[in-house]
């Protein structure tokens, strides 16, 4: 009985693999805490410079929560070094940055609830 249950579970798992492999990739965004963002006119450089990167899908700037999120296009990446360099060209200091499985819109929605 136990062997049969195990075999059934294994078979179901194996059957699910193709669906998982061919499904849509999870969105990925760089989410950063940034110092110095005090007005939208001043922070224009963040959005403008991030949008020059080929891998950028969307950009979200949150002045209240000191947050910048850059959603990457499916299958493409922006490395942390490039992100920090663009933020420096825009005139801002990155405190921390992490890759999160969310779109810029999802990060924006979550941020607005705070």
């Amino acid at each position, binding site marked *: 009985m136990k062997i049969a249950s195990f075999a059934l579970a294994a078979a179901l798992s194996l059957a699910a693999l193709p669906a998982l492999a061919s499904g849509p990739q999870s969105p990925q965004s760089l989410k950063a805490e940034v110092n*110095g963002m005090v007005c939208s*006119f*001043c922070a224009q450089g963040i959005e403008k410079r991030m949008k020059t990167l080929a891998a950028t899908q969307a950009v979200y700037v949150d002045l209240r929560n000191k947050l910048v999120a850059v959603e990457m296009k499916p299958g493409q990446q922006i490395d942390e070094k490039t992100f920090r360099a663009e933020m420096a*060209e825009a005139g801002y200091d990155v405190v921390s940055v992490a890759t999160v499985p969310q779109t810029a819109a999802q990060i924006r929605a979550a941020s607005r609830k705070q």
Partner: protein
Amino acid sequence: MSFVRSPRRRAAAVLVAGFALTFAAVDARAMPVAFTDSFMAMTDLSEEAQEASVSYSFARGWAVQAGGLRWTRDHAGVHEDTREIVDLHLNKRAWRLNTPGSQANWYVQAGVGSARAEQSGRDLGRSTVTQFGTQLDWETTRLYAAYKGHRYIARDFNHTSHAVVAGASLYEVDYDQVQPWVVVEAKRISKRSKDTEFTLFARFIYRTLFAEVGVNDEGKPRATLMYIWM
């Protein structure tokens, strides 16, 4: 994409610079250094002073600015004097401090150009003018303070202007919302100002647009507009 490789941006810069230079005005108060590879167009208009310029930030913390300004002064219906300057500046953001809730900056500027002076109806002709300036500012999402100093040295005039600005926003806004401010400026120009001029502004900031409308202590209107693009 850099300025050099974009014919469209070069053309836009030439057109805006041409517009700015034809204004030929006095009082380069603005000392903009925006983000790398960006352009900023500015104009500042009042009854006695008109200014227009365009700047391009070619490297982090650096910008070149071309512009013109014009001061005129009338007293009791009599035209007293005129100063007209067209010049080129190099602006440098010498220092910036970013903290979680604020930003502070120190800018310096130097420029050279051509000036024309008129005094008591007599045209004194054109001469070379050099200009030096500095600006210190500090702001949060709701407070703003700045000091702006400029020195203009030409054959026929030598002026130093000092301005102190303070402002407060009525409320915090999100990045994509219009933010209203109330701002007060106190300004004095040596060998021109009889007294310190106070101007009260309503300031509006929305993404790439910065606009101010105000009235000074003589009831005369003034407006400022800035626009950034890349």
